[in-house]
């Protein structure tokens, strides 16, 4: 135990254990936490004793994590009650400033959009029955109210509104930021208590993390009083836990599912188009499409190499395998939604996901759409199928482009880094929804007009078209070089990789801005 400061001690624990007989590796992995829970218990004990004015950012994070540690057969209500009965800082906050904090945190931890109906058909929710409170419940929580004045129903409403934001944002931190901005009454709480935001961030991150299921099981195994008869109970409890998590991970599932779905659909449609072109004798077009897919994969592999440049060759190989097997969008979506942190990566998971999507759009979807439009214009048979295919391709391009814009804009990190640009999407759920739909329409229509224009020009003269595109790109790269903005943003990369990534990234951005009006800087 080493003194860090007067109020902080680091505990380093080393143990070399021989358990005296053969035990399978998985069993050891489950049992080891038993030896390792001691100092965490000390940490929890002293964390609870911290006073409100002593709390720091680190305390907030730790409290959030502690609030999310589940124990065997313990309900959320019991967990929160036990936590609040021990935690001096939150007790102090409840007494002095925010009487309904327990109600709000309970609704937040329950992490449900809607409450289940009881068998009799009545709602279990804390929804008020009398008309005055019912009115308050339906109306948004007024900005002029203070934390002290909040009613139980209002606190529940605020807590419950968090789930929807978690579903509609990519990163847990972005959901917390939107929650703060959407509930003006909480602004003083965030402003005056530096620990509050990290606490909610930690809760949001844990709620989005399916591995908490594994952690939960570990906690059960770490219970020293576990007997043989408990194993069945444990399995049953585990199933119940899985059901709860199933409902709380909707946002994550939606994002990962969408990533897998779009990738698979893209692969199927591309394969179909290639075989159609080959069957109809348009082999050069088929090869063009194969080249587009190849260049998209190559660009993504280059970005992945740069992202994992500090890591082992096995990690680079694994990440490249995700790209080749088309699982990368799902993996990226998972990492972003769970707030994955990796200090050895070059950029954060959100930027990695955006780079991957940009490569896919710029080198495959947009040129593919252009090829389809060109084929349609020059085809003697203008079938409805080809037209619908172009429209679908335009819409998916618009959707992917809007996703990039939306994710980058609502991200807390980018809003803090570039406040003059990001923040154009407003903070309420309705406004965000409307903006997202408009972004899709804007990007799709922009893509359609530019694609048709280029395809018409291509039909007139290939040389002129490629000449114009090349000239535009050369000018754009020269402009970036003159502004000394070519590689300056690539922190953590050196040598040839830096210039290759810069070249590919600038080319991709140029295509995206030209063909979808992408709003990313």
């Amino acid at each position, binding site marked *: 135990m080493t003194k860090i400061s007067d109020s902080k001690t680091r505990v380093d*624990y*080393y*143990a070399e254990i021989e*358990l005296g007989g053969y035990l399978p590796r998985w069993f050891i*992995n489950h049992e080891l936490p038993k030896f390792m829970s001691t100092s965490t218990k000390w940490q929890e004990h002293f964390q609870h004793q911290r006073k409100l004015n002593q709390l720091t950012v680190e305390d907030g994070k730790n409290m959030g994590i502690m609030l999310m540690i589940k124990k065997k057969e313990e309900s959320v209500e019991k967990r929160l009650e036990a936590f609040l009965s021990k935690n001096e800082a939150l007790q102090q906050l409840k007494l002095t400033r925010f009487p309904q904090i327990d109600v709000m945190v309970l609704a937040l931890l329950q992490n449900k959009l809607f409450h289940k109906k009881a068998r009799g058909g009545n709602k279990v929710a804390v929804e008020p029955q009398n008309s005055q409170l019912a009115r308050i419940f339906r109306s948004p929580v007024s900005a002029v109210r203070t934390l002290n004045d909040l009613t139980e129903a209002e606190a529940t409403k605020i807590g419950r509104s968090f789930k929807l934001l978690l579903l509609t944002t990519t990163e847990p931190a972005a959901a917390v930021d939107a929650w703060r901005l959407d509930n003006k009454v909480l602004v003083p709480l965030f402003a005056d208590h530096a620990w509050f935001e990290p606490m909610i961030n930690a809760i949001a991150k844990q709620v989005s993390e399916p591995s908490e299921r594994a952690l939960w099981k570990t*906690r059960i195994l770490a219970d*020293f009083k576990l007997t043989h008869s408990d194993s069945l109970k444990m399995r049953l409890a585990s199933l119940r836990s899985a059901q709860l998590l199933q409902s709380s991970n909707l946002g994550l599932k939606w994002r990962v599912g969408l990533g897998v779905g779009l990738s698979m659909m893209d692969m199927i449609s591309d394969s179909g188009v290639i075989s159609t072109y080959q069957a109809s004798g348009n082999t050069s077009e088929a090869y063009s499409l194969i080249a587009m897919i190849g260049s998209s994969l190559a660009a993504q592999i280059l970005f992945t190499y740069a992202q994992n440049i500090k890591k082992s060759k096995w990690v680079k190989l694994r990440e490249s395998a995700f790209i080749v097997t088309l699982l990368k969008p799902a993996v990226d979506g998972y990492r972003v939604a769970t707030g994955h942190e990796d200090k050895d990566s070059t950029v954060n998971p959100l930027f990695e996901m955006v780079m991957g999507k940009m490569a896919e759009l710029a080198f495959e979807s947009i040129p593919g759409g252009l090829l389809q439009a060109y084929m349609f214009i020059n085809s003697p048979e203008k079938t409805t199928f080809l037209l619908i295919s172009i429209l679908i391709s335009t819409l998916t391009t618009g959707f992917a482009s809007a996703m990039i814009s939306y994710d980058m804009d609502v991200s807390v990190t980018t809003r803090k880094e570039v406040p003059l640009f990001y923040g154009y999407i407003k903070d309420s759920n309705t406004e965000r929804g409307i903006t997202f739909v408009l972004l899709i329409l804007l990007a799709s229509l922009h893509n359609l007009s530019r694609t048709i224009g280029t395809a018409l020009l291509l039909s007139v003269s290939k040389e002129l078209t490629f000449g114009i595109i090349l000239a535009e790109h050369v000018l754009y790269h020269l402009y970036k070089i003159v502004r000394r903005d070519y590689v300056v943003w690539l922190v953590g990369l050196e040598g040839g990789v830096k210039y290759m990534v810069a070249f590919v990234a600038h080319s991709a951005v140029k295509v995206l801005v030209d063909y979808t009006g992408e709003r990313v800087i």
Partner: protein
Amino acid sequence: MTSTPYTAKENNAVNRLLEIAEAFKASKSKKMTTASPLAQGKKQITKGNKHTITTIYYTTNVPCGLHELYAHIVAEDNSANFIEKIEEVYNDHHSINYYALSFPKPVHDREFHTSVVTKIEAEKIMFVSVPCFIEEKARNVHPDRVRAEVRNSTF
């Protein structure tokens, strides 16, 4: 600080464990899931003469002063974590611990008999737990328990 001088065996135990800690830091280890996200863990699994030897490391920051934490540890009663725990004070820096842990069936429960040596420095306190080097007292034999070893363990 303690008044009883440290024996050669006690000093050896402390030094050996510090060496193990240094060696662990210098060598490759795998990330290990801990019982709580508050702690970060690593592990190394090696083959011993007979059985697998696992070396684990984890670290946490406790929000209190060093001596406040030490006082809490000394006063803490953690016997509920064990199916049996007997602690005998040997001298002011050495205690002998016998304890047994329940393992889920069909695995047999494990028992440990260890010497715990405490070393207090100005800004550091170390607890070292090694196989007991004081002769063991006669005690009830539990045929259903397997004698395990915390070969070296330190804070």
